């Protein structure tokens, strides 16, 4: 039986895309390092040891130690848990808010569209980062609020995308056909519009994980994100800023981790788009 043939085809196309495969490999490695952190390092990411502060990379501390003598590799591995969690959860929040609003807005049009779009316009007039910054200012710092702020910060992007998808899908003949059979609007939204929007939404979500990681890291860098001593890549980057000239490894390695994770998610996103978009597929 070949029920899910389009997905099999898409997976094959994805496997042929070297950049996407590289992205997947990087995320898989990061995921493993982060998940298995307690097994891979004997250092406690919070344990201070001032006698071994600011040591450059060595056999003992592969990525060196920070100003409080904590092992940077351990902090990056444990910090990755937080950073990746923020990325995934924030995008989930953004989708949970943006997709229903966008689909309703595009499908029904009229005043529903008017109201939702003006709100989205207002949010879009700030950049994502500024919006998240404002939200953190209101909500306060801390992991939970950073996730919420980042998620709401990218939500308008999803409203816009979902609206555009609904706008084009509602003109499809099969939607008109469904109306003709007496299928209700909500059922049409669920069965036809949402299902046919899924592919671009998944692609966009993957691309946005990278963006939310950067936004959250940016908040951390400014000291408005996850609070010390909890390790988080952006916060670590901010802490390393003071030592950038004589102990650059403090900022370099968390920065590298952010760079790798974001790049990998973007590569996967691009690869997914090429693999799933039937218009690009030959």
């Amino acid at each position, binding site marked *: 039986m070949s029920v899910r043939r389009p997905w099999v085809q898409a997976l094959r196309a994805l496997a042929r895309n070297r950049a996407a495969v590289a992205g997947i490999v990087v995320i898989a490695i990061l995921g493993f390092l982060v998940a298995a952190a307690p097994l891979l390092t004997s250092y406690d990411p919070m344990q201070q040891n001032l006698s071994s502060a600011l040591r450059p990379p060595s056999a003992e501390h592969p990525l060196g130690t920070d100003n409080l003598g904590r092992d940077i590799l351990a902090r990056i591995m444990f910090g990755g848990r937080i950073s990746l969690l923020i990325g995934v959860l924030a995008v989930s929040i953004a989708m949970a808010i943006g997709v229903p609003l966008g689909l309703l807005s595009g499908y029904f049009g009229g005043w529903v569209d008017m109201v939702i779009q003006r709100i989205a316009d207002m949010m879009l007039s700030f950049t994502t980062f500024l919006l998240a910054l404002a939200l953190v200012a209101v909500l306060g710092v801390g992991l939970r609020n950073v996730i919420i702020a980042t998620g709401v910060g990218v939500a308008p992007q999803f409203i816009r995308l979902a609206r555009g998808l609904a706008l084009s899908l509602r003109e*499809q003949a099969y939607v*008109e*056909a*469904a109306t003709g*059979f*007496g*299928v209700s609007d909500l059922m049409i939204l669920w*069965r*036809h519009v949402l299902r046919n929007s899924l592919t671009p939404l998944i692609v966009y979500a993957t691309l946005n994980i990278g963006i939310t990681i950067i936004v959250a890291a940016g908040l951390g860098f400014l000291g408005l994100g996850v609070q010390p001593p909890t390790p988080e890549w952006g916060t670590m980057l901010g802490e390393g800023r003071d030592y950038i000239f004589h102990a650059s490894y403090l900022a370099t390695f968390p920065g590298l981790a952010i760079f790798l994770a974001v790049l990998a998610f973007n590569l996967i996103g691009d690869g997914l788009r090429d693999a799933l978009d039937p218009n690009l597929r030959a």
Partner: protein
Amino acid sequence: MRARPGENDRRPVAKGEVILRVEDLVKQFPVSTGLLRRHSGAVHAVDGVSFELAAGETLGIVGESGCGKTTLGRTMIRLLEPGSGRIEFKGTDITHLTRRQLRPLRRETQIVFQDPFSSLDPRMVVRDIIAEPLRAHGILRESGGRRRIRELMEVVGLNPDHDNRFPHEFSGGQRQRIGIARALALNPQLLVLDEPVSALDVSIQAQVINLLRRIQQEFGLAYVFISHDLTVVRHISTHVAVMYLGKFVETGTRDKVYGKPSHPYTQALLSAAPIADPAQRGRREHIVLEGDVPNAANPPSGCRFRTRCWKAEEVCARQAPDLTDRGQGHPSACHFAQVDTEVALPTS
């Protein structure tokens, strides 16, 4: 509870009983211009159309693209909002029903679309596509569930074992059969067929037409068959209406319209139709129309066809001709209606 129109009206309609009556139906689309999108006018896609259709009959609507036949087909079953006029389905006025009130009607009127590619959701398997109307009315289980789906697939000549395939795994003709099976799922009494074979190869067209005829005989459906192809309409219709710029210009039984065409436009269309008998070729008069179809937003005064008509006189610009019998035996909207058997097409 107030009885909703059509709800307790699932009785079978006797052959010959009028099932759809359309009176002076108008459907206009607003035209917006300029930066402020002010409504500057309206295109009358359908402009005062009336007809009756009885169970077991097929009304063929022919006309060039853009003449409003598709709009008419959708408006008559309330897929589009009518501008004015009156639509009666089995004696009930359905012109102004709300969406909710329309739900029972949706069970009895169905539409088959021209494009067998875009009218089927690419992410659904055939089983779900055909089940959709049944699900919408919550009667999938009571109608027999999967057995019913397989049965419908057999009716339209598809292999029921292919019910878990996606539309893209079928050919155009097969996809149109899926569309027909879906339209039949609710046992409708009226089927609007909007150019159902235009996207298909000629050899497949005949198969689908024969299938539609068989289904009609079996279930006693009324068809509205919309097409630009005169020869296809001739095969399936009992009655024919020729449409030009939103109006019917000639109506009647198939034999009358094809055998005794009296409107210049009908004559021109018929003269251009290909004919199977080689001995007849070249003998028939061939009328070539000049110019293009005028802009529907700004139609000519009087008779809409006059700008392309070789019979046009001064009166045509002044007065729109009524669709009446002027002695030719069936209604024709021409001041100078005259039967021309030279261009007649055999209907057998």
